[in-house]
C-alpha cells in the first residue's frame, strides 16, 4: 500500500472498494474483469449442467419403464419359474400372470366386503359405534405370495370382537403379481375390511393385524413396524 493510500480514512477505502473512480473498478475489479468472470462461470456451469443432464439421461435410459431395476429395499420376492399357471379369467386363488404388454386388471368387487363395502352404509359403521377399518397390502411389483395369504387381526380387550371380510381376511392370489403403474393401469389391490364391534362397557380396542399364511411375506421385522403388520387403537367416543 502506498503512503498516499494510507492517509485515506476507512470510509474512503470502502467507497473506493465499491467503486474506484481512478481505475474504474467495481468491488476491486474492472468491468472487463467482471465480464470475463461472468462469462467464465456461465460457460463452466453450462458445461456442468450439460454433463449432468447427459449423464442423467443415460442413466434413465438404462431404467425400464415398467419395473424398477432393484426392489431389494421393499421386499424380497422369490421368482419361481415353476409357478406358471396363467388365467386371464381372473380365477380365484390363482396368480393372474400376463405376458402381453398391457396387462388386464382383475375386478375387485366391493361386495365381498359386505357390510363394510360402503354400498349400504356410507358411514362404514362409524355412526353405530362399530367402525369398519380397511386394510391393504402395499403394492410391490412382481410379488407372488406363497400359500394362502390372509390378514389376521387380534384385539387385546376381551369385550371387543372383530369380524373380517371376506371371510378369514383372505387375500385372493388372483390379484398377484402386480406389473407396475404403467403396464397395469387399472390395477386395484385387494382389500380386507375389519369390523370392530364393541360390547357394552368397552370403549377401547388395541388391534394388531398381520399378514399370515404366506411364508414369503414377512410380518416380524424388528425395525420396520409396518412391514406385513400394523397395530392401531380404536376408541369409542360418545
Amino acid at each position, binding site marked *: 500500500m502506498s503512503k498516499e493510500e494510507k492517509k485515506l480514512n476507512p470510509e474512503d477505502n470502502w467507497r473506493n472498494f465499491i467503486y474506484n473512480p481512478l481505475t474504474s473498478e467495481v468491488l476491486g475489479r474492472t468491468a472487463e*474483469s467482471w465480464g*470475463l*468472470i461472468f462469462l*467464465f*462461470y456461465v460457460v*463452466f*456451469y453450462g458445461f*456442468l449442467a450439460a*454433463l*449432468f443432464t447427459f*449423464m*442423467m439421461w443415460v*442413466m*434413465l435410459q438404462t*431404467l425400464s419403464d*415398467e*419395473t*424398477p*431395476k*432393484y*426392489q431389494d*429395499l*421393499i421386499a424380497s420376492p422369490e421368482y419361481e419359474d415353476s409357478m406358471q399357471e396363467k388365467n386371464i379369467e381372473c380365477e380365484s386363488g390363482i396368480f393372474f400372470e400376463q405376458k402381453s404388454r398391457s396387462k388386464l386388471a382383475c375386478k375387485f368387487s366391493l361386495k365381498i366386503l359386505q357390510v363394510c363395502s360402503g354400498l349400504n352404509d356410507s358411514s362404514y359403521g362409524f355412526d353405530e359405534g362399530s367402525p369398519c377399518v380397511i386394510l*391393504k397390502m*402395499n*403394492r*410391490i*411389483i412382481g410379488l407372488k405370495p406363497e400359500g394362502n395369504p390372509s390378514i389376521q387381526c387380534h384385539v387385546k380387550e376381551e369385550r371387543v370382537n372383530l369380524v373380517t371380510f371376506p371371510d378369514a381376511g383372505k387375500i385372493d392370489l388372483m390379484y398377484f403379481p*402386480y406389473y*407396475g*403403474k*404403467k403396464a*397395469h393401469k387399472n*390395477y386395484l389391490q385387494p382389500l380386507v375390511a375389519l369390523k370392530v364391534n364393541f360390547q357394552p362397557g368397552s370403549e377401547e380396542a388395541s388391534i394388531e393385524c398381520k399378514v399370515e399364511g404366506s411364508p414369503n411375506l414377512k410380518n416380524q*421385522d424388528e*425395525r*420396520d*413396524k*409396518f*412391514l406385513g403388520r*400394523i397395530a392401531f387403537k380404536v376408541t369409542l367416543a360418545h
Partner: protein
Amino acid sequence: MVGGFSSLLWAGAILCFIAYVIEFTKDNSASMDNLFLGIVLVLVVILTGMFAYYQEAKSTNIIGSISKMIPRKALVIRDGEKKEIPAEELVVGDIVEIKGGDQIPADIRILDSQGCKVDNSSLTGESEPQLRSCHFTHENPLETKNIGFYSTTCLEGTATGMVINTGDRTIIGRIASLASSVGQEKTPIAIEIEHFVHIVAGVAVSIGIVFFIIAICMKYRVLDAVIFLIGIILANVPEGLVAAVTVSLSLTAKRMAKKNCLVKNLEAVETLGSTSIICSDKTGTLTQNRMTVAHLWFDNQIYRADTSEDQKAQSFDQSSATWASLLNIVTLCNRAEFGAGQENVSIMKKIVMGDASETALLKFSEVIMGDVIERRKRNKKVAEIPFNSLNKFQLSIHETDDKRFLLVMKGAPEAILEKCSTIMFNGQEQPLDESAREAFQTAYMLLGGLGERVLGFCHLYLPEDEFPDTYSFDTETMNFPTSDLCFVGLISLIDPPRSNVPDAIIKCRSAGIKVIMVTGDHPITAKAIARSVGIISANSETVEDIAKRLKIPVEQVNKREAKAAVVSGMELKEMSPEQLDELLKNHSEIVFARTSPQQKLIIVEGCQRQDAVVAVTGDGVNDSPALKKANIGIAMGFAGSDAAKIAADMVLLDDNFASIVTGIEEGRLIFDNLKKIIAFTLTKNIAELCPFLIFIIAGVPLPIGTIVILFIDLGTDIIPSIALAYEKAESDIMNRKPRHKKKDRLVNHQLALYSYLHIGILQSVGGFFAYFTAYAVQGFRPDLLLYLRPLWVDDTINDLEDSYGQEWTKYQRNHLEWTGYTAYFVAVMVQQIADVIIRKTRINSIFQQGLFRNKYIWVGIASQIIIAVILSSGFGSVPILSFTTLRVQYWFVAVPYAIVIWLYDEFRKLLIRRYPGSWWDKNMYY
C-alpha cells in the same frame, strides 16, 4: 478447544441439544438422533483439541524452565551463627558461604575466596570455569571477577560473599523479567489460520442464516430450520483440518529435527519459512568457533592455509628452508598438548589442553608433520617463559641434535620484531634492514586487515661455547639473550567461517532473505568474516570503503551508494530509531560489531518496524529478550545457555547457520503444502453443503446425513490430506522472495473460489448424480423426488407410492434414504481421490511432479478406499451411522466426474503455465 472452528462446532452441538430437548418435551418417544449428534460433536471438539495438544506437547521439547535453575537453600551467617535458610529469605547485606557444587543463592560480592571457580554458562553461554576472587577487575558487573551471580554454579573451592541483589533484581532475574515482559507477536501461521477460519466461518454463518430464513419463509417448522442450520454449519466446518495441519506441522518439525533444527513450538515451523531477515551471531554460528591458521608470511611472501573443517594436508609450497625453521618454532614454542587416549581420533577432532591459539598451532603442525610430541621429546625443553600480557611473548629453550641450544619465541609481531636484528630469507639470515621492516609492516597490516590474529615467530641458536650442554638456564634472571634474534615469519589465525556458510548465504540472498551479522567482535574482524562468508558481497562497499577509494572524507560520501554498512555498538547507541530504520532500509548488507546482547533487542525491533519477519540467533541469557522478541528466536544447541533455549522457538542442534537455511526451506515448503491441504479439505465442504441447500429448496429426501459428513471429514479425508504434507516442492522455493505477510495469504480468494465454486460444485454434481441414480433404480425417479419431502418424512404414511406404483413403508423409505447417503458418500470419496491427485501441484502438471514420488499419497488413497469399503459393506449398517450395504456399481457412478475434475485441473494448470500474468493466471492460481 475454543475459538475458531471449535466454537462453531460447540454452537452446532448446543443447537442439537436444544432441538432434542424441544422434541423430547413434545413427544417422549422422539428419536435420539439429535442428542446423539450433539454428543458426537462435543466429542469431535474435545478429541481434536486433545489431539492437537498432544502433538504440540510431543514435539515441544520442553528443556526445563528457569525455576529449575533456582537454588533452594543458602548457608548464611546471621548473628555470628551459621544457619541454613531457604534461599528466598535472603536479604541484601546477608553474608553467605558457598562451596563447590552449590548454586549461588543471590547476586553476591565476593569477600573472600579459596580457589572458587564458577560456571557462568547459564548466563553468558561461556562454558569455561571462571575464577572468582575479591578483586574488582572491570566496571561491567558481568565482566568483573568479584561478583557471583544468582543461579550459577560454584564448581570448586569455597567463597564468602555479601548479598547485593535478590530475586527479580538479580542480573538473571532482570533478564528473565525482561524476557517475559517482551511482548511476542502472533506467529504468521497463526495469523493465516485465523484469517482462514474467518473466511470459512463467515461462509458458514452467512449461508446458515440465509437458509434459516429461507426455511422459515418456506413454512418449515422452526425446529426443522434449526436442524438444517446444524447441517449447514457441520458441512462448512472442516472438522479434520486442525488435526491435519497439526500433524503436517509436526511432521515437518520432525524432518527439521533431522536437519538439526529442533522446533519447540510447532507454529515456528512456518514462521521460519516466512523469515525475511536473519540476525545471526558470528562466533560458532557463521564460524567454526575454533582458531585456525589462516595465513603464513615468510620469505617475503604470504601463503594461504586450508581452513576447512577437515583439513588433511596443507598444500602451500613447503620447500623453503625458512619454512622448516618456522615449523620448528611452531612445534617447540607451544605448551598445548593432546589429551590422553585419543589415538584413533582424527587430528582436527582431538581434544587439546591449551588456549585457542596454541591449539590451532599444535593441530596445524601435527597435520603437516605428524607426531609433534615425538619431536618435542627429541628437543627437550630446558627452560620456558609462558606468555603474559606484560611482555607479550612466549619463550622456550630446547636441546637440539647438534648440541647447540635453540631459543624459540613467539608473540605479538611488533614485540617480536623489536627483539630481532636479522631476518631469515630462503633459509639465510640477513640483516633486518629498512626494506625488510617495510615488507614486514605491509604483511602485518594486510593480515591484520583481514581481521586475523597475527603472531610473530623468531629463534636463535645459542653458541655452543657460551652455552654448553650443562648450562643451567634461569628464567628469573634471564641468563640468556632475548635480543638480536632472527625473525622467521608471521602466522595469522582466525576463527574461520564454516565451509557451508557461504553457500547458505548465497541461498538466502536468492531467497530474498537479508542476513545481518551481529557480533561482539572488533569491526575489522567482523567485516573480514562478513566478506569471506558473503554477508558483504565481493563488489559492495561500505561508506568507509568508498571514502577510501575516492580519497574524500567519510562525511562527503553519498550514503545511498554504499550497499554495505558496518556499524559498531557505540554508533548504534547514538542512533535514534529513525536513523536505525534509515540504516536498515538503505543498506542491504549490514554488520553490527562490538554490540552488546542488549542491543540485539534494539536491532530486532528495528527490523520488525520494517514489517519483516525476523529470525535471531543467540546463546547467552542476555540474548533471551531478543530471542523472545524476534518472530523466531533460535538458540544454539551446544553453546546456548538454558535461558536462551527457553526463550527461543527453535534450537539449532549443530549451531550451524546453514541449518537455519535448510529450516527455512522446509518452512516454505510446508506453507505451500498447507495451501494444498486446505484446498483439498475445503473442496468437499461444498459437496457436503449442497445437499442441505437442495434439500431445503427443492424438498428432496436428504441426500447426505450429518454423521456421514463427519465420516468424510474425520474418516476418509484425514490421511490423504496429511499425505499432501509430504509433497515435494514444485520449483525452487529458495528462488523466490519471502512471502509478504499481508499480501501472500495462506488462503486467498483464488483458493477459496477455485475450491468452492469450481471443484466443489463439480463434486456436488457428481454426488447428486449418484444420489438420483440410487433413488431411480429403486423406483423413485428424479421428477417424483422434487417436493416429496413432506410425504417422505411423514411417519404416518406407510404406503407412499413411487414412480412405478409400488408402495413404501416409512422404514423402507429410511432405508432407501441411507442408501442415498451411502451412494453420495462413495461418490464424494471417489471424487476426493481425484482431488488429492490434482492438489499435488498448483502449477505444474501432475506428470511433471511425478505420480509416484510421494508414496504417502497412495497410502492416503488406499485409506480412503478401505474406509469407504468398510463403511459401505455392512460395518456401517448400525442404524445410527446410517450407512447401508452398497452395490458395487455405485462405486463407478462418480468416476466420470472424477476424471473431469482431473482433466479440468490439468487444463487450468496448462493455461497458467502458458499464459503467466494473464487474466486466467490471476484468477486461477491459488
